[in-house]
């Protein structure tokens, strides 16, 4: 047991750092530091820089552009990327549909889609949740019916579809056998968002942002070749997808970067005659998060280092632990950021999250406007990707055998 990075791992970390220093556009970095919203082009630009370097899809097999890094290297890369801070590559392509296609897709599907995911030529979104199928995902109703021999006809509605407003493609769970047991009648379908009959309607969230959408399917024709794997086996692929993300799910690098930001803000905010950071209670609250975060980083590395001994086609219940604790820490930090700005959390100034240069300065400090929206926005992380309560059910069943 040696928990220090090896000389090779340190050299690798330095290589990643120096790449990020030179390759990450400063305007993107500053938006992330300041908590302003990224535009679609920011993610595309950054993904193409990564792809140019050969680091767009590090976890994929080498033949599809993967880097062959060890689990620890994967962790180091993502940790440095998130701390820079650089945008995390769009998860729906790189970490969701991509690995599913690699594991279960046809050769033609892989050739068609994988290179375009790596370069973010195709923007993917995820069509799992429905108005009546949240935590009970398998009760989904969106139906795909074969029409003759050439295509499915899809009818139904998906919801909470993140960034569907930019999407070229959506991967969907659809019901192909309405009479089978609910998990056994589901298929995994790739649908072109430009297909006639697809409608996207925005949902505004409590932070005032527009990340999620409803997506409606009205007699949408989908070629049979867009079925992934076998018909009625989609539930297995969905489980694979949800448990597949092990190295990044805890978002530790983001939390480290946010703690730095928090400390910087708390050093600038004054509470009476001294900076807020000198307040013992406030400092202890930050330190408590730092302790849990350091522990979680070690837990994450334990999972990452053990990765090579796992069967990669099975979901790993350890990812549920990482997701629960990682999301709790992200939320705790967003709370402290809001507390740090004190009364100026009150002023609602969403324009400062979108535009860099406005004629008037904001009410209160420059760093204030994103903090309350950030706090409200972060409530999502314990809900999406399987709520923390569902994660606990998974752990109870698959780790503890209850």
């Amino acid at each position, binding site marked *: *047991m040696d928990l220090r990075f090896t000389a090779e791992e340190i050299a690798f970390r330095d290589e990643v750092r120096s790449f990020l220093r030179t390759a990450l556009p400063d305007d993107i970095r500053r938006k992330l530091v300041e908590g302003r919203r990224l535009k679609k082009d920011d993610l595309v630009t950054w993904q193409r820089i990564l792809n140019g370097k050969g680091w767009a899809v590090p976890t994929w097999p080498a033949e599809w552009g993967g880097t062959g890094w060890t689990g620890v290297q994967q962790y180091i890369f993502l940790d440095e990327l998130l701390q820079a801070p650089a945008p995390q590559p769009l998860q729906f392509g790189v970490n969701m549909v991509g690995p599913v296609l690699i594991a279960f897709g046809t050769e033609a599907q892989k050739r068609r889609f994988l290179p375009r995911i790596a370069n973010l030529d195709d923007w993917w979104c995820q069509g799992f949740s429905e108005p009546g199928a949240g935590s009970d995902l398998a009760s989904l109703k969106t139906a795909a019916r074969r029409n003759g021999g050439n295509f499915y006809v899809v009818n139904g509605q998906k919801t909470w579809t993140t960034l569907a407003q930019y999407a070229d493609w959506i991967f969907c769970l659809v019901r192909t056998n309405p009479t089978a047991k609910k998990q056994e009648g589901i298929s995994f379908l790739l649908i072109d968002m430009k297909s006639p009959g697809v409608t996207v309607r925005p949902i505004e969230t409590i932070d005032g942002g527009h990340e999620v959408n409803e997506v409606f399917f009205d007699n949408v024709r989908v070629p049979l070749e867009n079925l992934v794997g076998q018909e009625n086996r989609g539930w297995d692929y969905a489980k694979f997808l949800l448990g597949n993300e092990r190295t990044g799910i805890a978002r530790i690098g983001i939390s480290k970067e946010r703690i730095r930001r928090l400390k910087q803000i708390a050093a600038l905010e004054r509470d009476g005659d001294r900076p807020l950071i000198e307040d013992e209670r406030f400092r*202890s609250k930050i*330190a408590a998060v730092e302790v849990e*975060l*350091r522990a979680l980083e070690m837990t994450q590395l334990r999972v990452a280092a053990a990765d090579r001994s796992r069967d990669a086609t099975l979901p790993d219940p350890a990812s549920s632990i990482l997701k629960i604790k990682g999301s709790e820490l992200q939320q705790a930090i967003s709370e402290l950021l809001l507390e740090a700005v004190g009364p100026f959390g009150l002023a609602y100034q969403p324009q400062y999250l979108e535009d860099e240069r406005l004629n008037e300065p904001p009410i209160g400090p420059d760093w204030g406007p994103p903090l309350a929206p950030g706090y409200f926005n972060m409530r999502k992380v314990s809900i999406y990707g399987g709520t923390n309560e569902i994660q606990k*059910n998974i752990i109870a069943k698959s780790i503890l055998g209850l």
Partner: protein
Amino acid sequence: MDFEFTEEQRILRESVDRLLNDQYSFEARRAYAKEPQGFSRELWRHYAEMGLLGLRIAHHHGGSATSPVEVMITAEAFGRALVLEPFVATAVLGGGLLRYAGNPQQCDHWLPKIADGTQILAFAHAERQSRYVLADVAATARLDGSSWIIDGAKTLVLHGDSADAVITSARISGAPRDRDGIGLFLVDAKSPGISRRGYPTIDGQRAADIVFSAVKVAPEAVLGEPGKALPTIERVVDEAVAALAAEAVGAMAAMHQLTVDYLKMRRQFGVPIGQFQSLQHKVVDMLIALEQARSMAMLATMMVDEQDADERHRVMAAAKVQIGRSGRLIGQQAVQLHGGIGMTMEYKVGHYFKRVTAIDTLFGDADHHLTALARGGGLIPAV
């Protein structure tokens, strides 16, 4: 980065587990606690024969000079079995102080006796007023010719009642909380002027209050440079924190397993109570707390030999915070999920709960270390 044990470490773990499975049932432990010194001399000899008391002691002193990982493996197994013997007092604290501060003659004399189990040592440091501040030493040592005269009262000396020799701290100069001016003195526990009052601790182990009244100590019994002992004390206490963290993880893992087993076995309303979601979620919260604690115990172990004292101490403080908080959550919930049986002296889970509660109070509780960590700027630099 590598989380695997070596072959030797795996063998060590298996042999410690085998010994404790054979000899340290809960019933056997109850009997050991009733022996005159509150632990089993026979098991102590077994530990010595297996080399567990000399893990960090050099080969030429009868030890095996292992890394801290072997101590972690041993302490974790001791935590699972709720071992009563003075491993931390003698092997970690006593042995550590000698290894770091002892001169060659002192090491030649004492370390082989620690490794072979013939001498039990205790570290007398805490005082009534000192709470968790290691520099807070009011006991005094003054020169009398070439000898030292020690006066003062030490409290909560782990296994101080059974110790053959006591390493005590005392102030040579300065005010009670000064970093400078502290010395370490190794004295025979039966020296004239020493009076000891032994008592049980809440976790079924033993401690003593020790009063030094004009105790005369020969110059060759001074450990290290008189007046400069605090860094040594801090280093050895950090080492003890790492060992206690591992022991706590052993106890937490055992409590968690007992609780999961109980949820599967106990039936109410016609079903095993483990089918109830509110109980499932609690036992998952315990698992997460356990894994977080295990991660920090591993990190603490890796930092034992870190030469940068500030960095080492930051990690130890963080580990102590995590261990304290996880231990409290797991202990309280383990009792709660067992219901009434968890409250009884006859059932094991409550004894684990008491041990992790005791460990939190040793060498600074979670709050103490969190405050210290926060004052020092935390773990992540602002820029």
